């Protein structure tokens, strides 16, 4: 067994960041400096954009442009964030042009997509930004007309003064308004007066998408651009020893083959500077096809990387991390984890006296759940454009967190941040992976080396076998019942490689008198990272399956048991720091119960499973209905109830929930990367099974709790409980419990892949 050299497993930063979810919230307020930055004053030329605030530009002929601050990866922020500005600005949505903003953390705030943060982070600042711009226009009109500001009204891009009958377009006053200082503290409108937010608006990029416009990173091109690909080692724990590129260099279109280091020896890695391989073997040529082919002709010797040491700086917390050298296999890793699980672990939370309660219990149930590495498999493989000269660096492509990679780029290029420009293209998916910017640094270094604009392209195989997966997880749950089948104690002990998933203050913490949560970790050389609702996407299946089994053992209805525990957590909470709101939690369960007709005999042809979860500040519950189709379980219908506070764009929000449901079914049924001696066994969609059209449910009904709570995020929360609801419905359908993902290894329908993970 590997010797554990450090308490800090590598890359265990997930919990300390916004990506991990829970109560953490990134917020910023719009200080006037933001708005004033780069503000240009007036012009009266038609067609000329006049900047009112950083977010709003208007032409004299009344075209309205709103800047979207946050990158887009399918969560529809390019539509919904500008809607918030437009609402307060009071313009007709159909006249609004939306533009993706440049990377500028001063002007546009954090510009970070992840942790279901976009709406939560930008709701208030964007309301302020829209209201401020409107106020400037009102003031400009009042000055021009010589009337009191309070008497000027607006509607749909027009200004009015009722008493004098005067009116004018925003464009008429844009120039004058732009000279007015941006006001502070303008109150956004009352929620009951919203006319745009809370109505369904179509994706502003819809036409561009359906006509195949070049929106994505892989579509980005520039004159003289070359294509680069990295040939990475075949296994985690290996590195480049030597290579002979003579055959490759003879191939048509090939410019160069070289070897560079990504980060300097001993350099300090920031929180999102994860990279799997540091020694890069790079092939550069004219076109992707030529580079792909020529790369196959490389003659490369790899060697074991051995144990290595890294210095990490996790947002100010410095640590030395030892990365083990062994070539890991999934089955032996699981064995190691099962051994480690028997040892003592770190105490995460304790209420009451769980040891005694378990000792005195009339009945104890104990179950262990396992989850595999999961690759993100974004539809658009990783890629980035870079053009680095001595004077400046231009980077363009798909990424979730430009602000986090910029300091890294500055460090590897030894260039001040103000000489680095990052342009954000639309992303063909992200799911957490594009928060890690190694591929930008790679592209930048390659461009500098070959002194040309270059696009770094990962093939699907490169992308899938590179790592930054969801960690390998396990968790054992125990419950103690008294002679009357009352729940008297609850214990969870979770572990992982290289980190565990346990969120100690989540439900049912707070609802049980005697509660114990523990965690342990084993180091690994497999890189891991945020995967849509990190940690929660494992907890929700383990905990929610366990509660289902517990309810059955106690002779209770699974929804009713959860509701009674939530009632306890509300009325007489146990312990401190419970991170959920029992009322909101109970509300989604009650809603899904009603909408699905839970317990209604008319649904008895279905095997029904329920689960609910709280993460990333929002609440989600699903009822999953399974039938047998061609002898195999098939999720035919799903009912979803969500509380994410105010829903900005309801139909787009429903689309995202439906997508999360499909994603959850797919990953719970089929998801799992298997390693053998460090080698990922699946490297493309012919070997890695993804949910397909025919396996998607026929119906997913989405319901949102209506309330006036500021938006609390939606990209991730609906995803984790899908796994749990699927597991619970599968039990009803198959007559056995499902403890290990992917579930289909126990009912393989023979299409592909029957992973045999556990020894």
């Amino acid at each position, binding site marked *: 067994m590997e010797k554990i050299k450090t308490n800090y497993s590598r890359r265990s930063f997930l919990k300390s960041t916004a990506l991990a979810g829970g109560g953490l919230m990134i917020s910023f307020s719009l200080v006037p400096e933001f708005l004033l930055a780069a503000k240009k004053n007036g012009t009266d030329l038609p067609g000329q954009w006049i900047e009112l605030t950083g977010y709003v530009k208007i032409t004299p002929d009344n075209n309205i442009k709103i800047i979207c601050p946050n990158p*887009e*990866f*399918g*969560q529809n922020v390019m539509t919904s964030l500008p809607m918030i500005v437009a609402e307060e600005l009071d313009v007709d949505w159909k006249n609004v042009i939306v533009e993706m903003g440049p990377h500028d953390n001063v002007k546009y705030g954090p510009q970070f997509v992840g942790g279901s943060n976009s709406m939560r982070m930008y709701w208030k600042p964007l309301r302020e930004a829209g209201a401020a711009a409107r106020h400037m226009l009102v003031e400009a009109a009042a000055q021009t007309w010589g009337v009191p500001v309070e008497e000027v009204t607006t509607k749909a891009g027009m200004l009015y003064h009722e008493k004098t009958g005067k009116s004018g377009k925003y464009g008429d006053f844009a120039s004058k308004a732009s000279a007015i200082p941006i006001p502070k503290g303008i109150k956004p409108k009352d929620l009951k007066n919203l006319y745009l937010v809370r109505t369904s608006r*179509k*994706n502003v*990029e*819809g*036409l561009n*998408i*359906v*006509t*195949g416009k*070049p*929106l*994505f990173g*892989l*579509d980005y*091109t520039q004159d003289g651009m070359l294509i680069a690909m990295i040939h990475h080692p075949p296994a985690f724990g290996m590195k480049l020893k030597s290579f002979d590129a003579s055959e490759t260099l003879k191939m*048509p279109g090939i410019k160069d083959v070289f070897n560079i280091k990504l980060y300097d020896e001993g350099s300090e890695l920031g929180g999102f500077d994860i990279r799997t391989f540091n020694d890069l073997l790079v092939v550069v040529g004219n*076109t*992707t*096809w030529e580079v*792909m082919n020529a790369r196959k002709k490389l003659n490369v010797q790899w060697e074991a990387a051995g144990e290595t040491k890294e210095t990490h700086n996790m947002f100010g917390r410095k640590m030395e991390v030892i990365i083990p050298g062994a070539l890991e296999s999934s089955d032996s890793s699981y064995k190691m984890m099962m051994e480690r699980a028997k040892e003592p672990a770190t105490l995460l939370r304790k209420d009451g006296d769980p040891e005694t309660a378990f000792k005195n219990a009339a009945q104890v149930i104990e179950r262990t759940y396992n989850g595999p590495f999961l690759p993100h*498999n*974004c*539809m*658009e*493989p990783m890629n980035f454009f870079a053009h680095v000269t001595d004077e400046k660096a231009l980077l363009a492509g798909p990424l979730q967190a430009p602000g986090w990679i910029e300091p890294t780029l500055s460090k590897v290029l030894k260039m001040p941040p103000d000489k680095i420009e990052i342009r954000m293209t*639309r*992303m*063909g*998916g*992200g*799911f957490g992976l594009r928060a890690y910017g190694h591929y930008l640094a790679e592209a930048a270094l390659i461009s500098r080396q070959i002194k040309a604009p270059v696009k770094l392209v990962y*093939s*699907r195989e490169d992308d899938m076998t590179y790592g930054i997966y969801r960690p390998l997880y396990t968790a054992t749950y125990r419950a103690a019942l008294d002679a009357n089948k009352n729940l008297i104690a609850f214990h969870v002990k979770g572990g992982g490689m290289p980190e565990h998933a346990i969120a100690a203050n989540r439900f049912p913490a707070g609802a049980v008198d005697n509660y114990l949560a523990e965690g342990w970790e084993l180091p690994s050389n497999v890189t891991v990272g945020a995967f849509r609702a990190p940690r929660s996407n494992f907890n929700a299946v383990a905990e929610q399956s366990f509660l289902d089994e517990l309810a059955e053992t106690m002779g209770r209805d699974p929804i009713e048991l959860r509701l009674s525990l939530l009632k306890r957590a509300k009325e007489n909470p146990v312990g401190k720091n419970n991170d959920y709101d029992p009322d909101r939690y109970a509300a989604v369960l009650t809603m899904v119960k009603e909408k699905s007709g839970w317990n209604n005999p008319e649904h008895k042809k279905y095997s029904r499973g329920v689960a609910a979860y709280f993460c990333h500040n929002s609440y989600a519950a699903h009822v999953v209905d399974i039938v047998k189709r061609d002898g195999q379980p098939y999720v035919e219908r799903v009912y979803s109830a969500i509380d994410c506070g105010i829903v900005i764009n309801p*139909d*787009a929000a429903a*689309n*995202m929930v*439906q*997508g*999360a*449901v*499909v*994603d959850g079914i*797919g990953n719970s049924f089929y998801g799992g990367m298997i390693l053998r001696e460090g080698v990922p066994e699946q490297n*493309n*969609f*012919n070997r890695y099974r*993804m*949910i*397909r*059209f*025919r396996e*998607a*449910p026929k*119906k*997913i009904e989405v319901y949102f709790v209506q309330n006036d709570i500021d938006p609390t995020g939606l990209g991730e929360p609906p995803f984790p409980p899908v796994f749990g609801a699927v597991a619970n419905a599968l039990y009803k359908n198959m007559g056995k419990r499902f403890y290990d993902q992917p579930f289909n290894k126990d009912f393989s329908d023979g299409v592909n892949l029957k992973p045999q993970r556990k020894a």
Partner: protein
Amino acid sequence: MATYNLKINGQTKQVDVDPATPMLWVLREHLNMPGTKYGCGVAMCGACTIHVNGSAVRSCQLPVSAIGTSEITTIEGLSEKGDHPVQKAWIELDVPQCGYCQAGQIMTAAALLRTNPNPTDAQIEAAMNGNLCRCGTYLRIKAAIKSAAKQV
């Protein structure tokens, strides 16, 4: 290297490429038509779907040398203004999330409706099963195909 005169979206385009080059890369990198997407390169995702004489074909597996006089249609040429019934239905039902797979989905759907203007659910499933959508927009795709079917 060899020279090919290809009929693409009603125009003749000349390229000088290696005969084995898949149409996917000819379109994307030689003809500057990046609407056709790379997703897997092994005919397992459908992102690269184009029409060859009206039928849906995975362009990542189609060498340029095999085209001959066939008529190629790509997403850029499916309609002049993005108003093919399938494209209109896609917008109407707000199908895309990230959008990366959607050109391929639309091309597969358009080819289906061309030969079968009134497909059953099973026929839609069979036609669309080779197109992956990582964002999980399958339900909306199905609804959009049914809606478009009423228009073609």
